[in-house]
């Protein structure tokens, strides 16, 4: 029986999505999960634009966008995945210097992380040569940018072949951190953003891998070409490159690009 | 002599009886729902009563004070019901043999042969239950219940699902076998014709035994 309350509720449910402005849908790489939420809150305060982020591995998000996922902007953890979308004609960097090159909004930092109670020698590159290191967690080098950087580092140090049997490969960088944080792996090559999260900064300590050991982990953004909110996307990209946000990136483990 | 004192709940049903079955043939007679079947299940050890003492020939089968309740297979009692409940995946022979485990092979074969002949099931011993008529199945069930030579056989409406003629045949068989094997029979029925087989009759209604004087069965409280 349709009571007035039910009718009102129905009207509310049916009309509510129309009343509110469609939010900006952000496809964000998993390493942004500890970083991005407060930035999006600040963005809404400044501009009145509500943005909602979905955090997945960059590869998963790329597949989703290729198959029509309704995202407006893609913040990848590398340049390869967004470039792939540009080449497929699904995304662009219109408005920047070169519309076919993803917009680099930050750089990632690779660290060697271990629990404080791990009884390992002190954290340094020498630890990677220590026999006490029985299990080293890395992210999947085939698709995770930090995994690629980890392998590049080990290869540069000529340790990759020796360490390979002791590597455990995680699906993504967050899981690599879990392997090490749960002490199933003795240490992990993970992102600085993960190492600076409250949980991991209490449990462990980290050593920043020298930047000359791996190619830069450039994080690129692209506009999903099918978006209907191009203006709002540009506002968000400008906001991410603003000095305030770049400073915020620095404090949460990303290296500013400006 | 099977003597008992029971105080049991089964669902909403409350049974409180005390008594003894001494005669070779006792019929427990009463309307359906009176608690007759419950009484037999408790005596046979299929259900565990809250407060009970059951003694068979001086040996305690159930003594809730001592936390004793022998499993149904260790009481020297057996039970046949309205439904023969033969194992559908086993032949009639294998059904009867199921209860015979302790004997050596030769003695087993002898005893099986004997029992099957007694119930006249030799001709269809190799068949499976679904290939037997109702009367045949009940005869196999009878053989199965008696093969291990129990002291007491409980029979719960054993002819309830059979036509009159077949029922009479099964009853005659039961009487004959019990006599042959020296087994005490406690039979539950609401059928006056079946009750007529009794040497002693016990009336049960609403969980109470009604005629204690004639049966040595007394109501507690």
């Amino acid at each position, binding site marked *: 029986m349709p009571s007035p309350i039910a009718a009102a509720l129905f009207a509310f449910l049916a009309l509510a999505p129309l009343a509110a402005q469609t939010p900006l849908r952000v496809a964000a790489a998993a390493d942004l999960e500890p970083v991005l939420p407060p930035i999006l809150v600040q963005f809404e305060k400044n501009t009145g634009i509500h943005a909602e982020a979905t955090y997945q591995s960059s590869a998963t998000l790329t597949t989703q966008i290729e198959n029509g996922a309704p995202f407006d902007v893609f913040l990848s953890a590398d340049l390869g995945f967004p470039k792939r979308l540009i080449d497929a004609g699904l995304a662009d960097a219109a408005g920047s210097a070169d519309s076919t090159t993803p917009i680099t909004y930050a750089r990632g930092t690779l660290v060697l992380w271990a629990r404080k109670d791990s009884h390992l020698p002190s954290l340094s590159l020498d630890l990677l040569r220590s026999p006490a290191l029985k299990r080293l967690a890395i992210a999947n080098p085939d698709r995770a940018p930090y995994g690629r950087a980890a392998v590049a580092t080990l290869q540069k140090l000529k340790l990759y072949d020796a360490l390979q049997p002791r590597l*455990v490969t995680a699906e993504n960088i967050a*899981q690599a951190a879990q392997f090490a944080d749960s*002490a*199933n*792996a003795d240490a992990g090559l993970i992102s600085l953003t993960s190492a600076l999260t409250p949980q991991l900064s209490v449990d462990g300590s980290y050593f920043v891998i020298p930047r000359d050991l791996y190619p830069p982990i450039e994080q690129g953004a692209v506009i999903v070409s099918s978006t209907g909110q191009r203006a709002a996307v540009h506002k968000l990209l400008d906001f991410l490159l603003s000095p305030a946000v770049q400073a915020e990136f620095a404090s949460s483990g990303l290296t500013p690009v400006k | 002599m099977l003597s008992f004192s029971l105080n049991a709940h089964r669902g909403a049903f409350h049974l409180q009886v005390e008594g003894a079955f001494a005669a070779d043939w006792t019929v427990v007679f009463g309307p359906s729902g009176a608690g007759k079947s419950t009484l037999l299940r408790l005596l046979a050890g299929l259900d565990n009563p809250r407060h009970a003492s059951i003694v068979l020939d001086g040996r305690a089968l159930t003594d809730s004070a001592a936390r004793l309740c022998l499993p*149904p297979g260790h009481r020297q009692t057996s039970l046949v*019901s309205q439904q023969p409940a033969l194992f559908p*995946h086993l032949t009639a022979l294998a059904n009867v043999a199921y209860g015979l485990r302790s004997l050596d092979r030769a003695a087993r074969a002898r005893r099986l042969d004997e029992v099957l002949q007694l119930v006249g099931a030799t001709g269809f011993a190799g068949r499976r239950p679904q290939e037997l008529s109702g009367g045949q199945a009940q005869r196999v069930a009878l053989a199965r219940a008696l093969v291990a030579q129990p002291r007491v056989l409980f029979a719960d409406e054993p002819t309830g699902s059979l036509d009159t003629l077949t029922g009479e045949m099964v009853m005659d068989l039961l009487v004959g076998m019990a006599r042959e094997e020296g087994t005490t029979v406690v039979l539950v029925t609401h059928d006056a014709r079946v009750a007529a087989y009794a040497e002693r009759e016990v009336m049960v209604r609403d969980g109470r035994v009604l005629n204690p004087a004639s049966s040595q069965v007394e109501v507690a409280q």
Partner: protein
Amino acid sequence: MDWQAFALSLRLAAVTTAILLAIAVPLAALIVLGRGRWLAAVEALATLPMVLPPTVLGFFLLVLLGPRTAFGRGIVALLGHPLAFSFDGLVVGSVIYSLPFAVQPLVAGFASVDTALVDAARLLGAGPVRLVSTILIPLARRSLLAAVVMSFLHTIGEFGVVLMLGGDIPGATRTLSIVLYDQVEGFNYAAAGHTALLLLGLSIFALALIYSRTRSHGVAPRDA
């Protein structure tokens, strides 16, 4: 085609199924034949792995089996290494993850056996072991089969727990489903298609073989 991963998946599924049967048959019999309210809790507990997202279950196991818990340290002392990132660890994870798929069909199958038959067997002196092996299992053999098939296939297709607990080590923890996922994530769709097709073909073949065998035998009693 990654035949090493293929063989590993088959081995994992076979070992897991064997262990699951050894656990699930007594457990299901206890749930069906036993008395007491605590059995409801046992059944609920045995069903619980279905509720948790597999990666979350894998994460809990990773922590539980890892060197940070007393239990995990016991395992390290016993084996010399943590269970995570080893085949043994995957077996433990798979057994827990697939437990409901072994227990549920067996509980349903055992419960559908006429209680009069259970009573009859008990009257004839059958203890729990004989009751289960000679009455419940033969009469609920389709359920037993279902439990085997479900456990096996569920383990073959298992992904979240392996992903979390495995560490993607070739020959030890890189199963076919992980390879398949890697292929999809690596945009290697052709290879992924081949792997998936093999997985499907294998499963259909196994299922058809098993179901046709039970059908043609025809001795499984219809009323059980």
